[in-house]
């Protein structure tokens, strides 16, 4: 209960104490070790998404170390922010304080990214996010923030294009009052209005205790489709209530819901739902199938949302570090990354001057028979 407030106060204090006592560490000596940190939810409600990425990063690091191609070792440093704004400062600071950390993969979520990115900027530490998709993140001039994923403008526009092409007349757009959800919903709403579709916008906080009222309203409104901009653990009970209330329209959600846990939680209620994602399906795409096999061998589960992208970005960082031929500092790594063009398994990674990803393709998935099935790139679905 009240403890949440206490935690908010206590954690920075405790972390501060740790930082004061725990600095130092070994410097230089023998084979050089560089560290790559990951900031994302490694505990808390969205740990499922966080672990997908962590595993991808871990796999890339293990493979690099085992390959013997490099004259340095890479070490992995987790920085758990629970996907929450309140933990973002602590998590970022823990990565920054470790002087051997040369680059960060993450922050995973948009809310924490907004808070952590300025800190990374001050420290000159490159933060390459594979999943923070709120469009405004790259517009604020964070000096070292790079986004290795198409933003929500692309995703929201993709949703709107898709529904417009399906010939839907009225859509309810629901956000979960998170920076991610609101950003995505804004773009989807604008896209739909532009296409001449009637849009109704609603906000339902993710920790709502009861979705019955909202579900009833949406069914009563007679909307032909629903876009939910938020994460799977909130969509699951919402979709259950919707299906009980008799909602028969098209359900669409974004990458925050694109996780097998959604089906585990909501089972039949999410059958037929469409899920967009800037991510490709690693188990489906030919280019990533070998990666998917190695991943499954290592972790016992198939790769999830953003696993392959995180794997790619980690490899990109490692390649840049290698390319610097020993002249490795946070600044030089950031500079190399910002200007790099890296051919990954999933796509080609490069950034514009604002750190925005240059390629903006969005892919569509659909839940069929209790599994998230790959449908294809939206561009092709709409065009064809």
């Amino acid at each position, binding site marked *: 209960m009240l403890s949440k407030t*206490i935690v908010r106060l206590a954690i920075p204090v405790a972390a501060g104490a740790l930082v004061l006592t725990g600095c130092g560490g070994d410097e230089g000596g023998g084979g050089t070790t560089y560290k790559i940190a990951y900031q994302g939810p490694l505990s808390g409600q969205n740990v499922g998404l966080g672990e997908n990425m962590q595993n991808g990063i871990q796999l890339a690091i293990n493979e690099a170390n085992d390959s013997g191609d490099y004259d340095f070792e890479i070490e992995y440093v987790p920085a758990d922010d629970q996907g929450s704004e309140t933990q973002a400062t602590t998590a970022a600071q823990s990565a920054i304080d470790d002087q051997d950390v040369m680059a960060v993969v993450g922050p995973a979520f948009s809310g924490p990214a907004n808070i952590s990115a300025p800190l990374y900027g001050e420290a000159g530490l490159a933060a390459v996010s594979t999943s923070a998709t709120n469009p405004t993140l790259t517009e604020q001039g964070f000096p070292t923030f790079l986004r290795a994923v198409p933003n929500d403008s692309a995703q929201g526009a993709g949703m709107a294009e898709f529904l417009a092409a399906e010939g839907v007349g009225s859509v309810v757009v629901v956000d979960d009052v998170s920076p991610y959800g609101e950003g995505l919903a804004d773009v989807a709403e604008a896209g739909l209005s532009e296409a001449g579709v009637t849009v109704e916008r609603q906000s339902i906080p993710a*920790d709502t205790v009861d979705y019955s009222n909202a579900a009833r309203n949406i069914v009563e409104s007679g909307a032909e489709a629903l876009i939910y901009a938020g994460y799977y653990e909130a969509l699951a009970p919402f979709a259950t209530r919707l299906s009980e209330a008799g909602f028969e329209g098209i359900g669409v959600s974004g990458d925050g819901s694109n996780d097998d846990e959604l089906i585990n939680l909501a089972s039949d209620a999410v059958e037929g739902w469409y899920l967009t994602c800037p991510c490709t399906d690693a188990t489906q795409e030919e280019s990533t199938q070998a990666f998917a096999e190695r991943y499954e061998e290592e972790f016992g589960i198939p790769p999830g949302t953003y696993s392959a992208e995180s794997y790619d970005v980690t490899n990109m960082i490692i390649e840049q570090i290698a390319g610097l031929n020993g002249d490795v500092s946070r600044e030089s790594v950031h500079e190399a990354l910002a200007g790099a063009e890296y051919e990954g398994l999933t796509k080609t990674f490069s950034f514009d001057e604002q750190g925005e990803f240059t390629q903006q393709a969005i892919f569509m998935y659909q839940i069929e028979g209790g599994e998230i099935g790959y449908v294809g790139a939206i561009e092709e679905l709409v065009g064809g």
Partner: protein
Amino acid sequence: MSLSDIWDVLVLGVVLGSLYAVIAIGYTLVYGVLQLLNFAHSEVFMAGGFGGVIALTIFEPTADPSGIQSVVYILLGITAGAALGGFVAFGLEKAAYLPLRRRNAPRLVFLITAIGASFFLYNLAGKLFGRYPIPMPSMYENRRLFTVFGAPVSVTQFLIVVVGVLMLVTVDFVVNRTKLGSGIRAVAQDPEVASLMGVNIDRVVSRTFVLGGLMGGAAGFLFGTNLQVDYTMGFLPGITAFSAAVLGGIGNVRGAMLGGLTLGIVESFTVEIWGDAWRYVGGFAALVLVLMLRPTGILGERVGRAA
């Protein structure tokens, strides 16, 4: 808003309010006898959710249960939820509060202990059961059961209200008509005199916790059935139910029931009119209004006086 809308929204409010009322009982009983705000009660509620999940994972419901089977599963879930809730409340009192009472610790220490216990319990649950939300195994098809003036009532909603009302009636009976009830009321009125009259205070306090825990645990199971179960699920319903207890008059059992129902209905109408983002604004505005006009809550304080 048409009349049929009002019925719909009212039904949803009563369902939510019944849950709040049952949780609020736990806060109010403990406050009545100890003047303690047991903030760890939200974790007792959470334990009930996990109790139901554990029982229904062991005795896994068949794919297409018949009516009687469904009833058995539901009873099993409620019993398991209540049992774990009662057990956690019992242990909580013995481990956290009893030693403090023995030492005559100041009231503030109890409050901080309650917060600490809440923190400990929900993190323990996160450690034990993982931090993913867990769905309650499906015990029945949640279809439309009947309508009230056109407002549909689903199986889960019916279940929540029926179980809620049964539990509230039982608690009211226990507090007003049984020997334990006289003990509870006596301790609430004046612990010293009660102990002089031969009431075993420790036993009464412990049983009060268990009684509140049984209610909270069963409510946790019902809430988990309606939503899902996870280690932080107690936070918001807990704080709302606490407000409900204050709204009705903390320490007053019937007040907690009334407060719970009122908050549920106010929230439901707030959501209908202004949207989900305003849910707690409506509920807490009602709380502030009532407390401004009647600082002791709708029915006034204290188990002893009201009962």
